[in-house]
Structure formats: structure tokens, C-alpha cells
């Protein structure tokens, strides 16, 4: 039998692949 959670799961907002890449690039630029 499946164990159902009592409350609904919280949707985790995710950036798009392109946004993720932009964030990654800016992080790399910041690091020495």
C-alpha cells in the first residue's frame, strides 16, 4: 500500500535551462 502524505507537496519553482546557465555563468565570472 502506498504511504500518502497528509498534505499536498509544495511545488518547487525551477528556473529554465537558459536561466540556469546564465546564473552559472555569472557565478563563474564572480569567482576569482
Amino acid at each position, binding site marked *: 500500500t502506498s504511504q500518502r502524505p497528509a498534505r499536498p507537496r*509544495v511545488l518547487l519553482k525551477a528556473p529554465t535551462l537558459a536561466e540556469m546557465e546564465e546564473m*552559472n555563468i555569472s557565478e563563474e565570472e564572480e569567482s576569482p
Partner: protein
Amino acid sequence: RQVTVQRKEKNFQGMLEYYKEDEPLLIRNLVTDLKPQTLSGTVPCLPAYILYMCIRHADYVNDDLKVHSLLTSTINGVKKVLKKHNDDFEMTSFWLSNTCRLLHCLKQYSGDEGFMTQNTPKQNEHCLKNFDLTEYRQVLSDLSIQIYQQLIKIAEGMLQPMIVSAMLENESIQGLSGVKPTGYRKRSSSMVDGDNSYSLDAIIRQMNSFHSVMCDQGLDPEIIQQVFKQLFYMINAVALNNLLLRKDVCSWSTGMQLRYNISQLEEWLRGKNLHQSGAAETMEPLIHAAQLLQLKKKTPEDAEAICTLCTSLSTQQIVKILNLYTPLNEFEERVTVAFIRTIQAQLQDRNDPQQLLLDFKHMFPVLFPFNPSSLTMDSIHIPAALNLEFLNEV
């Protein structure tokens, strides 16, 4: 030889815990620095299962920032590996398998009943409790498409130089060279002179290699089918385009050799159980071109037969091949203008595409059907060679 660490003394629930500061090490050892060979002999897609077990623990302790951070670092790590190895078929196939498997895990253990129909009760216990990762699934799906495109590009780059010589120039049927049209020097498809010829065996060997890499890495069978459909389409397009531009290969003997080569490829598909992939169907224009070269081209009945058989070629392509057709010897006549006019008249109602050549870079849209795993998380062992001893089994 792999040494597996078996730590089942506690009741392992299929979760992996780590300190947040170890996340870069986890990504480095499991993603960016990992060599696929390190995992030979282990469960296919092991990195995907390990990552899911880490995500599951972060979900279990309700740490949304940890889930966000791990998924983002994983995705960026995979992208980094792909960029670094953008001409490496094995590495690209490896990360396509793992990205798809992680996507399947996020569906299979999402708690969404639509994805749980094949789960065992034990697997249902391994579902996420707190977070809905639908949006991350979309990102992983987009990433999978990117990796698939890179994989096709690499495979095409390896196959393309072989196609013309293997399909149109190489003579494997004995005695056929004696009936080649005279007056044409053997042409090389390369810019430079020299022996750059490939046999059909070279193409088959290359495809065997692609196939075994993808199977060994546990890539979904539906994706493997789509890879070969795409590669067969390119073989068809490159060979047909060349045929449409070269008089010296528009002969009865090339038609005969070409049909034989295509039969070998069809047999290869059957041998690999890929005959239902749609790959063979993409070769139809080339099959019809081979038939056109072999059919008689004289009487109105011959014209009728050509129009009935060559349905995958446009009128423009049929006429072009007939115009280029080179008689074998002085006893075979050229195709007459009247015959070509008869063909054109019979096909005038066809709604054909305007361009003569095929777009050999065309890509079919890819689909990643959901493929749940029968594996249970608590049965997975982490090989010592991965250097992930900082992960705690929970």
C-alpha cells in the same frame, strides 16, 4: 574490477544524506570528473539513482534549498561535462542515459498516481514526501533534448564521411565492376586524393559500436530506436543527394550494389531488433532510386512501372536520375527525351516538394517515453571507486 561497498547493516531506506558543504565534491566525483568506464559492471544509470537518493533525503528532511541547490548543480555539472566532451559519443550517451533515468525517477517517485502504476509497494514507500518537482522535470526534459541533439551530431559526424563511398562507390558484389559504365574515372568523395574509401562493413561496425555503447549504458530502447531512425535518415539523404548530382553513379550496376547495401542495413536492423523503429522506412527514397536505376526505361509500360514503384521520389528527382542515367556499354541505349516526357506527363498531378535535394540535417522530433525502473532504491550499492564515502545511507 569494481569493489562494491555493502553497508546494509542498518535498515537502509534508500536515501543518501550529505553535508551541504560536500555538494561540490558530490558533483565533482559523480558528474564532472566521472569516467563512464569507472562504472562498468555496475547497475546502468547508477549516478541517476544516487542523485535521486540524495534528492529524496533532502525532501525527507524538508530542505527545499538543498533540493534546489543539488538539482541546479547537477544540471550545470552535466552541461559542463557535455561541453567538455562535445565530440565523445560514449560520454554523451552516458549522460543522456543518466539524465533520462533521473527524469524517470522524478516521475516514478513523484507521488503522481499516473506514474506509479508499475511500482511495487516498496517503491511507493520511496516517493517524495514534501516537494513537487514538476518544474525541474521540465528542465531535465529540455536538457535531455539538448544531449540527444549532441549525441546525434557526434554520430552523424562519424558516419557521414563513410556514406558515399560505402553506399555508392564500394563494389562488394563480385563481377559487378566489369559492368560499370566506361569513360568515368573512379571518383573520391574527399577533397584530397588517396584511399579514403569505406566499405559497408565500416558503417555496420560503427553502428554496432554505437548500439553496444547505448545498450550497455542502459539508454531507453525507445531512444535507441530514435537514434537509429535519425542516422538511417541521414544515410538515405546523403547517398540520394550524391546520386542526384553524379552521373558516374547513375548506372544499373550502382543500382544493383545500392539495393544490396540497403538490404544489408535492413538485415542489421532486424538483427538488432530495431526493425520497428521506423529506420528502414526512412530509406525508402534511396530504395526507389536503386529500383529506378535497375528498371527498364524504354516503353510506355516501363514508364508506368517506374511511376507505380518510385512513389518516394519526386518527379523532379525521377527526371534528374533518368537524365543522368549512364548506359553500361554501347549496347544499352540512353534514356530518350520522349520517355522522360511520358514520365513527366504521368506524374503531372503529383503534389511534389519543389527542392531536388533532401535536407540531410533534418531532425525528427525526439520523444522520451516514461520508462519506470523495477529496481528498488535500497538494493543499490555504491562502488568504492566513486569516492562517495561521505554519503550516509539512511
